[in-house]
């Protein structure tokens, strides 16, 4: 075992997979010499060369589309989208090409591309360096979407994604990069895609979440335990395909579901989870399905009080859990 931060876990996964497969390459803005704006690719260009760790122009459509195109002649790609906020120019390539190429070609092609997307706020990033737009991709069959919450999962999910042979959006939360440290195995391991993780067992209610708020839910659970509210925390880890079995198993046990995500509420992933519960566990519910999510504003505002207002927090989660437990 060795202790790593979330971002170190990402760098380790990239390095090990690049060593393991010489057909793997990466491209993105500032990822080469500079090592990425958050240093996720630090040292990789020196080790693997300028073409396998390729600095690109400011061209997200190119980053996405050329990654896809390169896989059609036998490569695998793990491009970086520097900020989730900047992914919009790449949407055409991700949605119309990556997600649909296999389908529209009757299975003739596969698209082994992992789009590493730096998402999330709470770090003073403002409107255009804080967005959580995972719902845009969860809406698109043909893609897979993952969002790790811990260093262990960050490494294991990235490795699994790179080996998966399908287009995957990998959301890494920038507030987690250096705020968490965890012991992870020295040996190679993966975290399977499509499997949620029960981070905490409990009987009173189920908190279903992913990414940064998993950690907030665990914090809230400690407080709530003192009040004899025993929270179960389900970390989805993969948003598409979602682990329905674990969601339903947990909600059928507790009868209460609290869904938490940082993205704004309307049209968010939480609505889909609520619908799954309503469709398949209705008879087990003792209380309305509840959501804690960002407010419905265009993006995360910059000024600190407003940023704090936008972000989910252990307190917001605990408050909602208390209400739900008392229902």
């Amino acid at each position: 075992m060795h202790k790593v931060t979330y971002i170190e876990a990402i760098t380790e996964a990239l390095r090990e997979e690049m060593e393991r497969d010489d057909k793997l390459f990466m491209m993105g803005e500032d990822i080469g010499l500079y090592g990425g704006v958050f240093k996720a690719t630090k040292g990789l260009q020196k080790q693997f060369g300028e073409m396998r760790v390729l600095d690109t122009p400011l061209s997200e459509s190119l980053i996405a589309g050329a990654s896809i195109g390169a896989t059609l002649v036998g490569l695998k790609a793990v491009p970086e989208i520097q900020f989730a906020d900047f992914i919009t120019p790449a949407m055409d390539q991700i949605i119309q090409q990556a997600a649909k190429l296999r389908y529209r070609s009757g299975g003739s092609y596969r698209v082994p591309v992992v789009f590493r997307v730096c998402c999330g706020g709470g770090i003073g990033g403002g409107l255009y360096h804080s967005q959580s737009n995972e719902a845009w991709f969860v809406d698109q069959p043909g893609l897979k979407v993952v969002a790790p919450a811990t260093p262990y999962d960050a490494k294991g999910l990235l490795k699994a994604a790179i080996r998966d042979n399908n287009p995957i959006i990998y959301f890494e939360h920038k507030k987690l990069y250096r705020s968490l440290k965890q012991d992870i195995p020295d040996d190679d391991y993966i975290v399977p895609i499509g499997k949620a993780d029960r981070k905490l067992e409990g009987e009173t209610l189920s908190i279903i979440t992913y990414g940064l708020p998993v950690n907030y839910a665990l914090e809230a659970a400690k407080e709530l335990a003192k009040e004899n509210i025993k929270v179960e925390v389900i970390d989805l880890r993969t948003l598409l395909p979602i682990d329905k079995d674990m969601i339903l198993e947990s909600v059928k046990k507790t009868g209460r579901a609290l869904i938490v995500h940082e993205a704004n509420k309307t049209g968010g992933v939480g609505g889909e989870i609520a619908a799954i519960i309503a469709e398949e566990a209705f008879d087990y519910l003792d209380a309305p399905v509840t959501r804690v999510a960002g407010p419905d504003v265009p993006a995360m505002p910059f000024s600190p009080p407003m940023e704090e207002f936008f972000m989910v927090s252990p307190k917001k989660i605990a408050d909602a859990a208390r209400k739900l437990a008392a229902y």
Partner: protein
Amino acid sequence: MEVTTIDTILDKEKLKDLYYHLVLTRTLDEETRKLFKQARFAGTYFSAVGQEATTVVPSFLLDNDDVVAPSHRELGANIGKGVPPKVIMAQIYARKTSPDKGKSHPCHYGYAPLNVITPASTVAGQIVLGTGAALGFRLLNKKNVVISFFGDGATSRGCFHEALNFAGVHKLPIVFICQNNLWAESVPLKLQTALTDLSDRAKAYGFPGVSIDGNDVMEVLKTSKEALDKARNGGGPTFIECKTYRWYGHSEIDPADYRPPEEVEYWKSRDPIPRFEQLLIEQKIITEEEKKAAYSKAKQDVDEAVAYAENSPFPQAEEALEDLYYEGE
């Protein structure tokens, strides 16, 4: 363009074969228009009659491992690359035997065994994929090339710029072939660009751009051969603007009445296939009899392809749920 002996670029047998591919493309296209009018298949049909030289000729020069990144309406690129007519017809008919198993709209031809990437309808998106394939060849140290085919309309999109800019930076092994048929569906060139020659766009990307008569088979042949050889040997991309014309509407449901009739007549008089035929006959590469035989063989090949498509089953409805993800290692 001055041509004294035309078999210096391709030998006589290859020229005959190229001629046959042009005739086959024209025949299949015109026959399929008739089939559409008889409601023999669903959707619509995107004819490329008039533009054959611009696609058949460059694709004909490629090796099997070279990649074609086409748009829709790229019948000629497929036939030039060697895609069998029955595969093309099964695609138009949306049958299970199509490479896409009935998933894609007619004329979105792709064929993985010959590295023709199945296109999306989002114009110009495929240029980026082609550029990525060229990057892939560079990373793999392969001597293969890519042709990216698109129309004048595609050159107005942002992803066109992103792709060509990047191809220039890395001198990628790709040839960009623009079929400027003067109309982006119903919008004339003068409302698309302030340029007269679209090849001027290449200046911004640091590689050569040329504008040629896309209805002159020999000019397309000479220009694309030079560009492909250059790309294959590390010389980087070329942008070739082929000035050409589609005889019919954007699709068969478009009467194309936005175009002046005299413009259509002018371009029909510049039909690339009779011009090439005349040259082949003058240079004694084919005879009048061989010309007739080419058309009757093409008709026979197309009839067989139609029979194959019409006798092929439709996919089962539930097959809509297949081919989302690759499940293997």
